[in-house]
C-alpha cells in the first residue's frame, strides 16, 4: 500500500471546563457540571443548532469538539469526504445506566425510545454526520485507554486508500460527569505546524 505522509491539521481538547484549540485556550468556565459547561459553550460560540439540546452528554461532547474543528473546513455547497473515527472507554454506558434505571423497577417501568437510541456509542457519529452533512466513512472503537497508535494507523489507511480526504479522529470519553475529548483532523495536506507532533504527544500534552 502506498504510504503518503499524513499530517495533523488542527486539534481540540475539552476537559476540566476548558476548551483548548490548537494549543490555545478558547473558552473556560468556573468549575461546574458538564450540563452547564456544555450549554455555556454552545452559547459562547453562538452555535445555532437546537437539536443539540436533545442529545445525550456523549453526543454533546463529540458535537462541541467537532463543531469547532469542522465548521471552518466544511461547506454546504460541496461534498465533504471527512471520515469519522472516534473511540472511548465507557461506550454509551452513561446513558445505558440511565436507561437501565428506567426498566429495573417494575413499579416504575418507563423505557423511552428517546433515551434508548443514545445507548449506542456511534450515535454521536450520526449526530456529527447530520450536522455537517458528512456522507462518509464512520466507525466507533472501544479501548481501555486512548490507543493512539491504532487510531492513527486506521486514519492513515482511510487516507491512503482514498476512502476519505480528511479524517476526524479522536477520543470522546464521558461517564457520570467525568469527561475528556481530544479530536484532531488529519489529511495528506502539508502542515508545518505539527511536524514533530503525533496524536500521542498532543493528547498527552
Amino acid at each position, binding site marked *: 500500500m502506498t504510504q503518503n505522509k499524513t499530517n495533523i491539521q488542527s486539534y481540540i481538547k475539552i476537559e476540566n471546563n476548558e476548551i483548548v484549540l490548537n494549543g490555545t485556550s478558547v473558552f473556560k468556565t468556573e468549575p461546574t457540571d458538564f450540563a452547564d459547561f456544555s450549554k455555556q459553550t454552545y452559547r459562547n460560540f453562538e452555535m445555532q443548532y437546537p437539536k443539540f439540546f436533545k442529545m445525550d452528554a456523549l453526543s454533546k461532547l463529540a458535537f462541541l469538539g467537532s463543531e469547532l474543528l469542522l465548521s471552518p473546513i466544511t461547506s454546504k455547497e460541496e461534498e465533504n469526504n471527512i471520515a469519522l473515527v472516534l473511540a472511548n472507554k465507557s461506550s454509551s454506558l452513561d446513558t445505558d445506566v440511565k436507561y437501565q434505571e428506567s*426498566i429495573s423497577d417494575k413499579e416504575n417501568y418507563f423505557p423511552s425510545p428517546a433515551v434508548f437510541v443514545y445507548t449506542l456509542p456511534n450515535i454521536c457519529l450520526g449526530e456529527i454526520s447530520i450536522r455537517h452533512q458528512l456522507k462518509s466513512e464512520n466507525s466507533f472503537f472501544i479501548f481501555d485507554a486512548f490507543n493512539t497508535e491504532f487510531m492513527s494507523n486506521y486514519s492513515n489507511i482511510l487516507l491512503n486508500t482514498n476512502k476519505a480526504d480528511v479524517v476526524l479522529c479522536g477520543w470522546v470519553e464521558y461517564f457520570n460527569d467525568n469527561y475528556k475529548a481530544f479530536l484532531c483532523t488529519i489529511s495528506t495536506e502539508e502542515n508545518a505546524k505539527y511536524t514533530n507532533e503525533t496524536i500521542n504527544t498532543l493528547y498527552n500534552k
Partner: protein
Amino acid sequence: MIREIYITETNCITPLGFDVESNISAILRGDSGIQLHNDVSLMPNAFYASIISDEKINSAFAKISTETKYSRLEKMMILALEPIIKNSRVALNSKTAFILSTTKGNVTALANDSEESFNNAHLDVLAKNVANFFGFQTQSIVVSNACVSGILAVSVAKRMIQSELYDNIFVVAGDEVSEFVLSGFNAFQAMSELPCKPYSKNRTGVSLGEATAAVLVSEEAKNAKIKIIGDSSINDANHISGPSRTGEGLFRSIQNALKEAQIEANKLDYISAHGTATPYNDEMEAIALNRLDLQNVPVNSLKGFYGHTLGASGLLETVIAIESANQNILFESKGFDEIGVSEAVNVIEKNEETAITYFLKTASGFGGCNTAVVFEKIK
C-alpha cells in the same frame, strides 16, 4: 501491490447449531430459531425471539473449559472462536490481531448493582476476558457501531491486514437477547407480534435474536474460503433512529465497495441483505438496490432464521453467505410471502441451486450507519 485478503476459517453459535454445518442443514430444512417465549424476566408479555438454551451453552463450554467466571456471552464468543483458532494453527503473535464486535456486549451486567458487575458491562473488559482465554499478544480492538458492527469488523480487519500491520485477524461478533434490548425495541414499537417477515407486505417489525460468529481474516490464500474484494461504510447523515428515505448511505456504500472490487453491479450473483422486517428498513434497502440497478439479483434476509442478532448479524450472515456461495445454493428468505416494498427486489422464495461467483453483504443500523462488503469465490 496491494495485498489480497481472504477469510480462511468460519464458525457460528446459534439456536440452529453450534457449528456451520449444523446451521446449514437447519436452513436447508427450513428450521427457524425464532420461537414464542414467556419469560417475565425478559418481557412483561410473551414475545417471539431466537434464543439459545443455557444448558446447550453450558454443556458445550464445559467440554473446553472448567472455568466458571465467564458470562453467558463470553462463553458463546469463546465457543465460536475456539475451533477456528485451533484449526488454523495461526500463532497468536505480534502479527495476529483480535477484533471483537458487538452492539451491547455484556449489558445484562447492568441489571446487577455491584461494582464488579458494572465493570463487566465495559466492552474493553469483555474483549480482555475473551482475548485472555486464548492468549492473544496484541491489544484487543472493539468495534461498536450498532447493527453494522459484525460486518464492519470484517472491513476493519481487511484494511488493517492490507496496510501490513497484521497478517491474521480473528474477528468475533456477538450479542444476546436481553431485557435491555427487548424493552428498547418494544418502546420504539419496532417488534413484530409474529415471527418477522422481511420484505413482506404484512411485515410489522423485528424478531430479536442472539448468536455469535467468528472468522479468520488472513493474507494467506491457502485454505481460503472466500476473498474480500471491496468494502465501504457510509453514513446517511439523515436521522439517528431511522434510515434515509433515499437509501443514500447504503447506496454509496455499495457503490464504493463495487468500485474497489472493480466489478460492475451486474456481476453480483447474490445479495445477503440486512432485512430487519421493519417497514422503514426494508423499504430503504429496496430503494437503494433499485438505484444501483440490483433489483433482479437474488436477495435474502436471514432474519427469518435467526431474528435480528444486532451486532452479530453482519458476521453471522456473512458466514452463512460464504456457504451459500461455496455450495452454489441460494437459501430461501424465510418468512417472506408477498412482496411489500414499493420498488421490486428479487427475494429468494425457495432454496435454489445456482452458480455464485460474486456476492454482496450489507447491513444498516441506528446512527445512520451502513456497511457493504463484496466477496469473490475462490476459483
